[in-house]
């Protein structure tokens, strides 16, 4: 009975969604002329990023520069999520000693493979967030890749422990770097998170002014926060 009701509801929702999106033609150019007197927002970003920000990846320019304040909020949301998880799954000190990591006894192949793969995964992640302004990817993606490397180590080794003190330090320093560079932009460019793209030319590693530095800080912050979340979620109290 419930199933029938749910399916009827889903059909109604699906009909109205399809009815809405059938009226939005797929692949139509909605940006308009990008060099017009008053371009659309997308047109402005497309035509001005190359000269004003000297960043090859326009998505990076939008995320870090034009909408930089939103990214600061996003990083804050991630920080709040990791804090929230830590407080929801809070353990007292005596409980902490009894917890152990939820992992099946992993075989020798997985453990040896993880040891070989971990540095390569970490290197790939660092490459992705250093080249965030040139290639697809950036701080969030690179940080996630680094965190997957840590996840591999956490599920293969029971004794692999992350240093919480050091992680908190890296996280705070990365967050402070973001805000400090924002204030630097405020001094140099009269806008919070304003950009100073005087150095370098398009498509070289040293270009884009403050954008790559902010994205590297974001990469470190995301990597550390995700590793912390995974570490907390993987720990359980053993059944007696």
């Amino acid at each position, binding site marked *: 009975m*419930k*199933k029938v009701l*749910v*399916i009827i*509801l*889903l059909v109604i*929702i*699906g009909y109205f*969604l*399809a009815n809405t*999106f*059938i009226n*939005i*033609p*797929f*692949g*139509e*150019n*909605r*940006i308009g002329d*990008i060099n017009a007197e008053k371009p659309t*927002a*997308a047109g402005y*970003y*497309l*035509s001005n990023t*190359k000269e004003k920000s000297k960043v*090859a*990846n*326009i*998505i990076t320019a*939008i*995320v870090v520069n034009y*909408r930089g304040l*939103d*990214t600061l909020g*996003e990083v804050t*949301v*991630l920080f*709040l*999520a*990791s804090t*929230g*998880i830590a407080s*929801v*799954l809070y353990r007292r000190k005596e409980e902490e000693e009894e917890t152990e990591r939820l992992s099946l006894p992993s075989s020798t192949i997985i453990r040896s493979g993880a040891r070989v793969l971990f540095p390569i995964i970490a290197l790939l992640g660092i490459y992705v967030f250093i080249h965030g302004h*040139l*290639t*697809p990817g*950036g701080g*969030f993606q690179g940080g996630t890749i680094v965190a997957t490397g840590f996840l591999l180590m956490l599920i293969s080794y029971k004794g692999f422990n992350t240093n919480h003190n050091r992680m908190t330090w890296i996280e705070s320093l990365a967050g402070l770097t973001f805000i400090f560079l924002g204030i630097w932009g405020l001094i140099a460019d009269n806008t919070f998170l304003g950009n100073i793209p005087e150095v370098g030319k*398009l*498509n070289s590693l040293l270009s884009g002014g403050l954008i790559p530095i902010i994205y590297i800080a974001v990469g470190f912050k*995301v990597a550390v926060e*995700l590793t912390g*979340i995974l570490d*907390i*979620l993987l720990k359980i*109290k053993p059944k007696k």
Partner: protein
Amino acid sequence: MQEEFNEIFLKYHDIISLGVYGTAIGLILIGLYAVLMKKNLVKIVIGLTIIDAGIHLLFIGIGYINGGTAPIFSPGYEDAAKRMVDPIPQALVLTAIVIGFAVTAVALSLVIRLYKHHHTAKIDQIKSLKW
């Protein structure tokens, strides 16, 4: 090569657009079904992430432009700005993925907490939710 691709693309344009929108709406409906019908809390969280995936696909699909390239300048193609797809939905989806991750992680931690308290993850067995 590029022209050939564009020709084939325009030939099957209707089918591709139906495929993109259909897949997106289908994913949203599958996720909603999981949220409404499943008893296990972990499966409900999986349903939420499927809804997320559908919404992201919808955003990217709306931002696409026929024959457009990724909004990234490559060496030698510095004047390609006219042929690029809309960058704003892509930046939005980048944000949405990160927020979706945070939401999923918090939801899973709440599930762990509920499981510890009630020793079950099935919502029909958690009596304190009923009134």
